Each structure stands twice: as C-alpha cells, then as structure tokens.
C-alpha cells in the first residue's frame, strides 16, 4: 500500500493532480485516471477548466470521492464533501461512466465524463506500458505473452524462455492492462484467460493494482 499522488505529482504544466494522504482505492484510481487523461493535450486542457467542488458517488456501493478543482489544480479526497456544488453518480462496473440525474445539465459533467473516460490505447501499447511499470517487480514472471483472441496476434514482453500467457479480446486487454476493472474478476468472469500458476496469478493481480492505483 502506498500513498502516491502526493502534492506536486502533476502531469503537465497546466494540470496538477493531487490526492489526500492515505487515499482510498477509489481516490487512487480516480487520480490515476485523471493523470492518464492529462497525457492527452485536449483532455488536459479540458480538465484544467474544471472548477468548484464535485462529488461522485457510486451507484452500486458506498464508494465516493470529491474533486476540488481550481486553476488547473485538482485535489481528490474520499467521500462526498458537504460543500459539493455538484454530485454525480458513477458506475463502478464501467469505471467511470457517470450517471446524471434528470435535469442535471451542469456543463462540468461533460468535461468530467471526458476526463474520467480517456480513450483506451491500443492493447499493444497498454501491454507495453503495463510491463514497463511492473515487469521488474518481485515475483513477476520473466516473460508475459499477451494474446489477442480477436486477431490471434501475440506480444511477448520480457526475455525469459518461459512465462505466462494472458489472453483476451482487444478491448478487454486494453482495459485491464490500462488499470481498469479488476484482473481477478475479469478472469473469474471468463473475459480473460491465463496460462500460469496460482502464484503468478497473484503477482499479476498485484501488478494490475499497481497500474490501477499508481500507473
């Protein structure tokens, strides 16, 4: 567990994303997502326009967070603050499709929707980035073969003679390897498959969380 996203961890000159100390998983995940959006100039510019105090509340469970935004600075904390001037629902299953109430037409909703749903990279790019961030971590297999079941294409990461194979559709691979969802749940549900050992599954779950929360 870490308390990443400390003050000063900005993604660009015009956007600074910070999180509270000892952040919750949702705060970490939101911070990572906004930072990912900040790597795209148009979304970075959009995020920098956000102002005010915006709460987001899960429609499926108790998880919630608040964005405090001003002048290109976004600070994210857990819970919906009492002074939030806009509260939006979000769907935990999609991370982070927002669900507005009838009549909610605040223009910030569109901005936040875009910022929290940056376009997914091609699965190959997501896999390469995933491996770069986690491949040398303790316990990681020496080789990760990512196989796209839509096309049969494979990408081998790492130079060990043997490793694990992670297979799935292109969109699913892009989501998972970008830190969305939950690798174990996706395997359990059959959206992904893995040729590896239980210990390798464990460490890959941890690698996924690393990308999800700190990528």
């Amino acid at each position, binding site marked *: 567990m870490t308390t990443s996203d400390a003050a000063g961890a900005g993604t660009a000159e015009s956007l600074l994303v910070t999180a509270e100390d000892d952040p919750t*998983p949702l705060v970490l995940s939101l911070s990572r997502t906004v930072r990912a959006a900040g790597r795209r100039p148009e979304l970075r510019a959009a995020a920098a326009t956000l102002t005010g105090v915006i709460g987001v509340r899960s429609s499926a469970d108790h998880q919630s967070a608040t964005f405090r935004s001003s002048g290109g600075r976004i600070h994210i904390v857990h819970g919906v603050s009492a002074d939030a001037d806009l509260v939006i629902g979000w769907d935990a299953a999609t991370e982070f499709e927002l669900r507005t109430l009838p009549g909610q037409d605040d223009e910030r909703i569109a901005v936040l929707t875009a910022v929290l749903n940056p376009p997914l990279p091609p699965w190959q790019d997501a896999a390469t980035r995933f491996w770069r961030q986690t491949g040398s971590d303790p316990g990681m297999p020496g080789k990760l073969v990512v196989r796209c079941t839509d096309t049969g294409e494979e990408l081998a990461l790492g130079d060990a003679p043997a490793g694990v194979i992670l297979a799935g559709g292109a969109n699913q691979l892009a989501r998972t390897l970008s830190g969305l969802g939950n690798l174990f749940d996706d395997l359990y549900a059959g959206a992904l498959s893995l040729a590896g050992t239980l210990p390798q599954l464990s460490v890959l779950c941890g690698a996924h969380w690393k990308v999800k929360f700190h990528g």
Partner: protein
Amino acid sequence: MDEVRTQLSRSEAEQWLAEHAITSVRVEGTNLDGTLIGKNVSVAKFLSGLESGFAFADIAAFGLDLGNVAYFGFAMPPWRTNMGDIFLRVDTTTLCVWEPGRASVIGDFWTADGKPLSACPRHALRRAMTGAGEQGYGIKVAVEMEATVFEESLQQARLRGYRDLTPLGGAAGACYVLAKSGDWDAYMRAVVARLDELAIPWEAWNDEAASGQVELNLAIGDPLTVADRWVRARQVMREVADRLGHSVTFMAKWCDEFGQASHLNLSLERDGANAFYAPDGPSELMTHFLGGVMASMPGTTSLAMPWITSYRRLVDLEGPPTTVSWGVGNKTTAIRAVVGHPAYSRIEYRVPGSDSNVYLVLAAVIGTGLAGVDQRREPPPPSDLMAWRLPAGAERLPRTMTTAAEALAGDKALSAALGQELIDYWIGTRRWEWLTYHRHGGGPDSDLTGWEARRYFELA
C-alpha cells in the same frame, strides 16, 4: 487432565494415547491471521504422521481471508504453489487430553521440502526465542486476554448479523464490578474450570470496562508456552460459550463502547534473575530493549492491529495508547515500564488488540527489543504526562491499516526479526484486506460496518 511435557517417541506417544483412551487427535496450528486451524485424525493416522507431519493445502491454511476468499495481489513465497501441500509437524510437548477420547496437540508448519514455513508465526516466535538464548537471555511473558460475551448463542448472533446483541451480565457498571448477574459469573467460572482441566495456569479474571467484557490473565511463562496457552484459552472461551448457549468475540471493538486489547508483559532474565531489574529504574538492558521496541513500534502496529476494526480502538482518552510513547507506571503510553522490583520489572506492551496474533506480536517485540540491546539503542525520553490529546508534534501510532503497513515495510529491524518473506506475505494480505473492505465494507468515515461484524466476530 494430563499434559505431556517432553517430546515423545512414536512408541511413547502410542502408549500415552492408549493410557488415556484416546480415539482421535486434533492436530492444530495457528496461521498468520491468528486463526487456530487443524484436523481431527485417528490414532493410527496420528502415529503415522508423527515424523512426516500432516498435510494441509497451502492456500487453505495460509491463503484464505476471513471471508473465505483467496488472498491475491502479491508475490508468493516459494512454498505457495498450485494448492500444493504444506505440513504440520506436531510438538508432542503440547499433547494433552482435550476431552474424553480426544487429544489435542499443537504444531508448526513446514514446507514440502522440509524447511520451516516462513509465514508460520510459531516458527517466528521460536526463532526470536533462539535469538535471545544465543545472547544468553531467557524470556518471561504473560498475556492479558479481553473478550466480550453475549447472552445470545452463536447461532442467534449469526442470524442477527452479529449486531444488536445483549452483553452478558448487563449493561450497567464500569469495571471490576462484582455485582454482575449469575450468568456472567457462571460463564467465567466454567472457563477457568476448563483451563484447570487442561492444565493451563491462569492468574485472574474480572469484569472489564465495556458491557459484557471480561479480562482473563494467563500465568507467566516462556513465550512459546504462553502463546500456546493463549490460543487454547481462546478456543476454550469459544467452546464454553457455545456449551452454555452464549457467544463470545475477540474483535477489537464490536460496538461503540470501549474496545478490547491483549496486553503483553515481557521481561528478560539471565541466570534466573530478572535482567530488567535495577533498584532505581530500568536496568541498562531494559533501557536498550525499550530502545529497540520503541524504534519499531509504528511497524509493529501492523502486526498488533491486524484488521480494519483494530484501528477503531485507537480513541484518545478511552484507554488504548494512541502515541509512540512509553513511561514508568504510565498506562496512557504505549509501553508501561514497571521498574524497581526484583521480580516484576517488565514492559507492558499495550498496543495489541484482542484480535492480534500473540505468536506474531511476541516475535516482533522480542526481535526488535533484542536488536535494541545489540545496538545499545536509547529510547526516547519517558513520558509522565497523559499521552492522549497531546499538542502537535507527538508521534502518533499509525491510524490505519495502510499507514501501519507502510511503516512495517520500511522497518529493517522487523524484517530481520521476522524474515522478509513473512513481512511481505503479511503486507500483501493486509493490502488485500484494505481493498476488500473498501470494495465491500465501508469507507474511512464509516461507523462499524456489518461487513466487519460478519468477517471478524467469529474468527478475529
């Protein structure tokens, strides 16, 4: 009932079992989460497994959380495979008659290739004791146990989701109250009667501060023996509660009343004399031991407060320590030093919750204390103030599972004392617990959740 006190050969064990008309043996061990796990085996199976040990699936023994879901998300040690076997080798010095026809014996976990299992807390404590012995010290410890007992049976408690229960003995009173209803007295008398049957020496029991709360003090002894007695005493308290139609929990806090702890009292001895004793305060040895324990207190908190609920106990002015502090005779600090007495000079480590694993916390305290002795480490100044609600600047104990785990991850003395594999395994499982709580339980500001009650009431 009889308790064996020396290691038995196969023929001696066979004879002992026959003499006591034993038809089955419960082989037991404590996993990293502090849960007593085991199997009931026939006499023939027991005798055949005396040397080889008894197989347990690695994931079932050390890989399931208290919600019965596999821990994932971290690098596994080499002994974790595709649900391969690990082995419980029994320590026949702990063999005893648990009840007519059934014996009980405690053991340690070993890998399939015959190495001590790195995450086995009993091994960790044994290593700490060996370290002390190599430095020429013996160790004496005593454990205080707190628990809350309810009028309702466990079955009734389950039906209610472990909420809205009725504390046994009524809600009136404060602490040490003797005017309790007879059912409360009957429960504790039945508990100590069972302890007597099992040759588990106890010193005292009394009403504790919260409604339905009891404190039981086990007698002083060497760390391994006392830890074995602790885990058995918990089992006794659960079995007696069940027999009398009640339920009991060791959750650190089950409601908004005062929480419950498991204070550890510890001293070193040399040549049979208390080495913490000096006429005018802590001995030099005790001072350095304190220095080591204090330096690692933030990291040890992760072990002493293992669950989400554990941290709910850390409320200023409610009894538990909240700061990294020690003082002579000061029970508001994290360590109370008892000094100036030839027999009773000791530290009382007041951080652990009643939900902590005594094997593990003792190993951590002993290991870091001995490191302090080795390094002649000086502790911070003692506090003679109330160590709650101090002005800014006082170092507080970690307030959450995450911050405690971070402190543990950065503590080299604890890694050396417990082994890096155990530390990594522990931190991995705590991260899993934190994530699971946030996905299914509650948030940082939630009051005690039903998720916690369902997860911890019976097993913590």
